[in-house]
């Protein structure tokens, strides 16, 4: 084993990390209060649902898929849990049922993608319409509420950080281990990189694909629960737009849309970057009407830089 020089180590770090550090430095120079524990806690708590959604998106993208319905699934999980609670089902049981529903929705998407070889983008966009529609029907388009202490017991701080951050960490570990140390993980990379190899090895690629979407469904379900605990209500449109942010985070984290290249660790950095930008613009007091264009602009720039750097590395 050759020892890596310091420069090699610097080069091997994903570029998104430098961008993340750069943004933090910029924001803290502009607004010294930015560097407070409270603010960082804020960022962490805020990003939990998107983080877990992004893990789901990463896993899907590794199979050369994409999921445009993650938002709808998060929406329905918040709605269904509360709706069931208002009908007398204990909230915890409702939450469990909601996660199971999320897994089922994932498996259905996987079924269409796998068995009929439909383009994932369009299947999941169709599914987004369907699931969002159901969420709207359950709530008649408004938010629905059910008071409970369960929400706070998740968001409460245990040992420095709030509980939902631990959930995100747990989901990361599960996803990471799944990708690295299980059969399904190996199969996922094969699905994106060379599905033929699975058939040759006697694996049914369809089954692996359905399992992958179901696993992503599980993650999305958990993301939905974390969203529920944050907003403490059933919100039929709360996550709309996050499905795309999850794609952006995945790409920023170094996962390629093709060939099964990448992994879930980088995705964390991608999500943090997006969240740090959004939070930072707020903290330094950028007026609301300029926030969307600034966030979009910085994220787009980051994506471009990321692509240019990895293109160079490939050479």
């Amino acid at each position, binding site marked *: 084993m050759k020892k890596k020089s310091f420069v090699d180590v610097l080069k091997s770090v994903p570029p998104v990390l430098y961008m993340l550090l750069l943004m933090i430095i910029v924001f803290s120079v502009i607004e010294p209060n930015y560097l407070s524990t409270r603010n960082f806690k804020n960022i962490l708590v805020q990003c939990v649902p998107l983080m877990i959604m992004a893990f789901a998106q990463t896993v899907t993208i590794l199979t050369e898929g994409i999921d445009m319905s993650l938002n709808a699934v998060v929406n329905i999980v918040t709605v269904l849990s509360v709706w069931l609670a208002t009908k007398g089902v204990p909230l915890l049981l409702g939450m469990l049922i909601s996660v199971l529903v999320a897994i089922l929705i994932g498996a259905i998407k996987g079924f269409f993608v796998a068995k009929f070889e439909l383009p994932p983008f369009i299947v999941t966009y169709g599914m987004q319409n369907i699931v969002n529609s159901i969420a709207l029907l359950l709530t008649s388009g408004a938010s629905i509420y059910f008071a409970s202490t369960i929400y706070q017991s998740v968001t409460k701080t245990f040992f420095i950080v709030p509980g939902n951050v631990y959930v995100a960490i747990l989901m990361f570990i599960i996803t990471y281990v799944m990708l690295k140390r299980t059969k399904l993980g190996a199969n996922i990379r094969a699905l994106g990189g060379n599905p033929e190899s699975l058939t040759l090895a006697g694996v049914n690629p369809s089954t692996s694909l359905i399992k992958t979407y179901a696993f992503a469904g599980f993650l999305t379900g958990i993301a939905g629960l974390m969203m529920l605990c944050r907003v403490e209500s059933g919100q039929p449109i709360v996550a709309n737009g996050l499905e795309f942010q999850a794609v952006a985070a995945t790409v920023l984290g170094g996962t390629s*849309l093709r060939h099964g290249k990448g992994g879930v660790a980088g995705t964390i950095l991608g999500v943090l970057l997006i969240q740090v930008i959004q939070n930072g613009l707020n903290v330094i007091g950028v007026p609301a009407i300029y926030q969307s264009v600034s966030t979009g602009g910085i994220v787009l720039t980051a994506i471009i830089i990321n692509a240019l750097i990895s293109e160079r590395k490939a050479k």
Partner: protein
Amino acid sequence: MKNLWQSIKESRAFYSLIGLVVLVIASSIIAPSFRTVNNMITIFRQASLLLILSSGLTAVLLTGTMDLSVGATAGFVGCVVAQLIKHDMNVAVATLIGLLIGVVIGLINGTLAGILPGFIATYGTNWVIAGLGIVVMQGAVIYDLPPAFTQLGVGYLGAIPNLVIFASVVVLILYILLSNTTLGRKIYQYGSNPVAAKYAAMPTRRVVLSAFVICSVCAAFAGMLMTARLNAADAAMGDTYGLQTVAAAVIGGTSQKGGEGGVLGTIAGALILTIVVNIMNLTGIPSQAQGLVIGSVIIIMVLIDTITRKRQESKMN
């Protein structure tokens, strides 16, 4: 005649056209009011913006890339033009500026799509453009535009709404552009195999840029018509169109992988989505439930398209 039938049958639009016919027949049975001339005109009017947007997008999809920014582009250009006109600019000049913005956005998207996957590049520009829309509107909504402008969206030529005429012209131009010109051929060839296109000495960059410019100009045009039709401008007005546009083109048989499909199918796709909404409105299905039906229609149409095409291919093999 036999030749035309043969070529329609073999084109990727075939099954979406059949789907359209079936849908029209079914709708006529379900809702008698569907059959009226008035309702037909309404459908075409309602479909017109989607037709313009999705025909433009077809050019990009045929190159094998994606443009997610059409909705935001439409909204943004609609807002800019509304502001310009509100600030007493001549309508013709404002419209021209709107189209120029379309060209610029197309060039930016096309350039970025050379470095990044089009999907992710245009998602980024979508974000920025939508944000710019908010900035242009300063968080407000504009109402009451001069009739010289709104007439574009609400006026009629005889019994036919201006919107329908505009849509027909745009669709026709795009059809000719893609099927009967050297640029169109190059777009198809590039989409079918970008590497082979490069080896065939095609100016590939320029071809991709052209496709994106076509798409964004269509989006810009649709955005202005949108504002004219609504007699108002709102930063978010184009948002829902983004993915719907993709869906229209894809259920019309245009492959996201590029090289296959065309405007004919996209017309069918846009009409199918519009008719489904129309019939739900006629039969009183609540708007909240409509996504359920639209989502199912999208999946079913793509399912039929995929299965039948696979069957055809295996026959050829």
